[in-house]
């Protein structure tokens, strides 16, 4: 099938799940709403399924948790992932712990959607990634799709999952090209959470990433092919659970690992992943490193923001340097 744009992907996933399961409800509508989806869905499914609510992370996350405990499958939208700070009580202190703390009495099948990501000139407080804030919370899943088609399948998987899920929609996916090489796109089906995906197979190097950075890694892999470097690109899809086995399997073949994260290195998921791989498979590694951002808030000025962010060019430059290739070879 031809890949949808993000707007269509999200709207269709929501519509299909609302259609499939009467317990699914949408809360909010304060977000960037890249589908313009909520107006359309409210008209189609009615105000009892698509509920307006104030732009409050605190109340939305708390109410979504209560609704999920009482039998609904709420999907709510934060205006931006930066505002997840206000939703942390409901998500971290309640939803993530309910299944365990209750002794398995019940689950909290909620989804918190949020636009995320730098590169769109939104400044320090509307560009940052909450991945590392959330990754250390047992019981909370983090889905971070890498393309509109992936977003569609993973959102359906997140809504069907019995556990609470933070679903991060990278802003750059809105501008994603509809086709990216020969990568097979999922056919509108739900993608169960927890498994990584080989976005591009290769033999010489494993580039692990998630969300908006995966397309940078794929572009870099195309450029590196010109150097005779055959890079594998692994799309984690979810940062928790983390499909460590898929990374280990890939590294066992390529012996080199690069983790690309749009976020600071210290406390980030990429650095954590390197530690886990070293612990389990040091014998497989010839080299391992991360490409992250400087330890700084993300600046507004396009000149400054671009200098801070990794892109295909900086991935390629880093790989060439680690492999000892002269710049511009090939």
């Amino acid at each position, binding site marked *: 099938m031809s890949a949808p744009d993000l707007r269509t992907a999200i709207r269709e996933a929501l519509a299909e799940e609302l259609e499939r399961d009467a317990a699914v409800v949408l809360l909010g509508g304060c977000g960037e709403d890249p589908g313009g989806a909520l107006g359309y869905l409210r008209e189609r499914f009615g105000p009892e399924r698509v509920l307006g609510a104030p732009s409050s992370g605190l109340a939305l996350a708390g*109410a979504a948790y209560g609704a999920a405990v009482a039998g*609904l499958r709420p999907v709510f939208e934060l205006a931006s992932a930066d505002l997840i700070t206000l939703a942390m*009580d409901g998500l971290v202190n309640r939803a993530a712990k*309910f299944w365990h*703390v*209750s*002794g398995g009495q019940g689950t909290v099948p909620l989804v918190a959607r949020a636009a995320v990501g730098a590169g769109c000139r939104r400044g320090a407080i509307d560009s940052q990634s909450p991945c590392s804030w959330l990754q250390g919370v047992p019981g909370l899943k983090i889905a971070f799709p890498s393309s509109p088609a992936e977003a569609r399948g993973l959102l359906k998987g997140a809504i069907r999952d*019995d556990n609470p899920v933070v679903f991060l929609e990278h802003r750059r996916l809105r501008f994603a090209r509809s086709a990216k090489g020969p990568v097979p796109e999922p056919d509108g089906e739900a993608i169960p959470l927890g498994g990584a995906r080989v976005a591009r197979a290769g033999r010489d190097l494993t580039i692990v990433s998630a969300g908006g950075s995966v397309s940078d890694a794929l572009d870099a892999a195309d450029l590196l092919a010109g150097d005779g470097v055959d890079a594998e690109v692994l799309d984690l899809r979810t940062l928790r659970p983390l499909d460590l086995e898929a990374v280990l399997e890939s590294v066992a073949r390529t012996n080199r690992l690069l983790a690309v994260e749009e976020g600071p290195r210290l406390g980030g998921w990429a650095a954590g992943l390197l530690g886990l791989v070293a612990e389990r498979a040091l014998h497989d590694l010839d080299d391992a490193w991360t490409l992250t951002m400087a330890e700084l808030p993300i600046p507004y000025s396009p000149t400054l923001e671009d200098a801070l962010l990794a892109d295909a060019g900086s991935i390629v430059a880093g790989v060439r340097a680690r492999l000892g290739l002269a710049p511009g070879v090939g």
Partner: protein
Amino acid sequence: MPGLGAAQPEHATAGYLGAYGRMLLIRRFEAAMERLRALGEVQGPIHPYAGREAVAVGVCMALEPADYVSGHDHGHGHALAKGTDPEALAAELLGRETGVCGGRAGAASVIDLQNGLIGCHGTVGGSIAAAVGAGLAAGRRGRVAVAFFGGPSADLGYFHECMGIAAVRRLPVVLVCERDLHAERARGIAGADVAGRAAAHGMPSQVVDGDDLWAVRAAAAAAVARARSGEGPTLLECRARGLDEDSGGAGTMPRDPLAGARERLLADGVAADVLQELERGVEAELDRAVDRALAAPHPDPAGALATEFSPAR
């Protein structure tokens, strides 16, 4: 013995007789847990509920078993009022496998879905959001959701944000602010008008004598009826004079709701020996519950729930 407030017999005093038994159970349960804590058997904190028993029990008298309740971190009062088995609750505080949450929750976070207790909330104000969320689901099933929260919670964002959602959507929710005026005075935060804040959201509210089981029950019954008929939420500000929390239960109680209920039952014609039999029954049930809980096994660290996530549907 009667069902400790769970049943609602036809005779006017009979429901209150059972409710008095439930209040006594909460008071005695708390004292028993404090004794076990002094012995090192209960190791976690226990936040006292003594002096507020009339609020939890009076409100729960107005509820059906399937209705939802969310509590704050003095949650053993809410749990016992809603019908949680005292043995399972004692076992929970003792960290036993037979605890209502398998020993995973402790006193402050008790969950008992079978009895409609969706959770107790140590993060202040969280119970309000939980009940409002449950109210979204409750309306579909003709159920009502009740939040218990302390007076200081009414100063937090949760309170106003959730009142806004509940009022706009006319959710079947009753918000029960349990004011412990003694404790609030000790902390220098007493004096605020909580009930009046509901007007800003177009929500009715009422100040209730939280030391009076009959007054709480009547106010709750009206609010629950309003919620169940689809007319929307109500805020009840229940003013209990309670105990000073900082005195560890040893403080003075200006007007003990438990003693007040006993006097009222006597004045309403309940014979003293009937009360004494009820009281002996409560003590005996509690003793049995604690003995059985103490004899129960501790959870096996290698046992169930060793996985992080619940199995996907």
